[in-house]
């Protein structure tokens, strides 16, 4: 659906560091792709390159095999109508009502049929749950309602892709969840491809299929969310995860120092999460386990569990334990 090949961007005047440094990635049809990174990592520049609000210095961007980077400024408006975008600060027109805001992209595209526009607006407001508020002005809406208007507006021209630039970062946690639910619902109902950027791991976890971690303009890690989330390889990913409650290196070292037996991290994904595998292993090996830390939950729709356990035994019991875990297909890492 979207293919980015080697794009780079440097802002003039700023220090030598590149905003984007040879980024390549692909987003599949119907997929929700997340880009996470700290502020200043370049994620905003990256998403703004996708509809050429920023033009990369080099590299190419394709939307459905059409090279956007080869288009002239005159051709841009047409292709941008196929790409919806929602913003952190909503960017609604204050002088227009909710319905007029949603109708705005339709009129820009040259829709003269007023009845058709009205029908489409009603349809969109219904989709985002704002049917009753069409005549209100944005100033009288809550943040969550404003973002719903933003989403309805972005969908007006039936785009192929929706870009979300920190769409929930200005909202409280409860409203954030309702907006994320709405995005997921739209993705499923319309089969719409979504590319989002965020600095919150929780957004990635509840919404995305795949994720790329951006740091200093480079992708340091990418893959399916379950992989990146459960087996982070890069320090930046780990520290982003630590902020959302996963134990970081220091915490692990502290636990390892206290443990008397082998320390292992077990990871369960899918249905295994709900099977009594640990107690079965315990019975089979005759070992007792001490759960030091753990989380069980869901990544988007996939149940997962990750436990840090200490086997109450000497180091010589380790091979038998590992064999038992392998037999049960439990992913395990020996920490100490």
């Amino acid at each position, binding site marked *: 659906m979207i293919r980015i090949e080697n794009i780079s961007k440097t802002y003039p005047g700023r220090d030598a560091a590149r905003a984007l440094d040879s980024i390549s990635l692909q987003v599949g049809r119907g997929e929700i792709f997340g880009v996470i990174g700290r502020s200043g990592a370049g994620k905003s520049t990256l998403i703004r390159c996708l509809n050429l609000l920023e033009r990369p210095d080099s590299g190419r961007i394709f939307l459905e095999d059409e090279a956007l980077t080869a288009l002239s400024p005159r051709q841009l*408006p047409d292709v941008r*109508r196929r790409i919806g975008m929602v*913003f952190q600060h909503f960017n609604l*027109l204050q*002088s227009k009502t909710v319905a007029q805001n949603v109708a705005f992209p339709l009129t*820009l595209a040259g829709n003269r049929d007023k009845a058709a526009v009205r029908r489409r607006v009603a349809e969109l407001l219904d989709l985002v749950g704002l049917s009753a508020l069409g005549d209100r002005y944005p*100033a009288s809406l809550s943040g969550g309602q404003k973002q719903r208007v933003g989403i309805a507006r972005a969908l007006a021209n039936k785009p192929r892709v929706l870009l979300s630039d920190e769409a929930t970062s200005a909202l409280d946690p409860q409203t954030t969840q309702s907006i994320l639910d709405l995005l997921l619902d739209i993705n499923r109902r319309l089969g719409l491809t979504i590319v989002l950027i965020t600095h919150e791991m929780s957004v990635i976890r509840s919404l995305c299929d795949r994720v790329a971690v951006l740091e200093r303009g480079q992708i340091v890690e990418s893959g399916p969310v379950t992989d990146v989330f459960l087996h982070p390889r890069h320090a930046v990913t780990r520290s982003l995860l630590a902020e959302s409650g996963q134990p970081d290196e220091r915490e692990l070292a502290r636990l390892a120092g206290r443990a008397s037996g082998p320390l292992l991290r077990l990871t369960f994904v899918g249905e295994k999460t709900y099977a009594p595998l640990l107690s079965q292993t315990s019975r089979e090996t005759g070992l007792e386990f001490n759960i030091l830390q753990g989380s069980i939950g869901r990544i988007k729709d996939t149940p997962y569990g990750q436990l840090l356990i200490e086997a109450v035994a000497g180091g010589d019991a380790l091979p038998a334990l590992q064999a038992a875990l392998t037999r049960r297909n439990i992913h395990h890492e020996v920490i100490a």
Partner: protein
Amino acid sequence: MNWSVLDWHEIGQAVVDTVTMSGFSLLFTIVLGLPLGVAMFLTAKGRLMPQSGLYALLSLVVNFLRSVPFVILLILMIPLTVWLIGTSIGVAGAVPPLVAAAAPFYARLVENVLREVDHGVVEACLAMGARRRQIVLFALLPEALPGLLAAATVTGVALVSYSAMAGAIGGGGLGDLAIRYGYQRFEIEVMVVTVALMVLLVQLLQWAGDRLVLHFSRR
């Protein structure tokens, strides 16, 4: 004071002249100043059509006209005024110099009002595939409407007081009356009444402007 010396008929005519002068001047000021202000906004650095050379030129013209004292501008403009409308005196003769003074002033205000529009809105329009003309007509100007009206009110008030000065070279209106009767003939009563009427006129204008701004404000 002897109020019986007042010629109410003449005062009434002066009010009509002042309103006509300021009204037509305001109209042409907006007709010329609004596009000029929009052009300055668009060509400024980092905006929709950055053209630093053109911006510098427009800015220079605006600053020049704004810095020439109005009395001097009145005199400098005489040949142009005569060429434009055939005379440099009377109500009609006052309009060109008034516009020449007020249009750059209004243009600068317009530029500032447009800068106050959230840049995110422009960006959202670009992302929706809006062309520049559409952004200006359907987003920037409507978003800035309350500010544009407030700026027009300020300009209108300035025009009322400038029009009094235009009376100095035979423009007619309340200022003319105040100078000829009140100042040169020491008829204090005329002075008091004309000044009071000017104050009233300005108050009315400001009140109407505020009402309009409020009507179009959606915040």
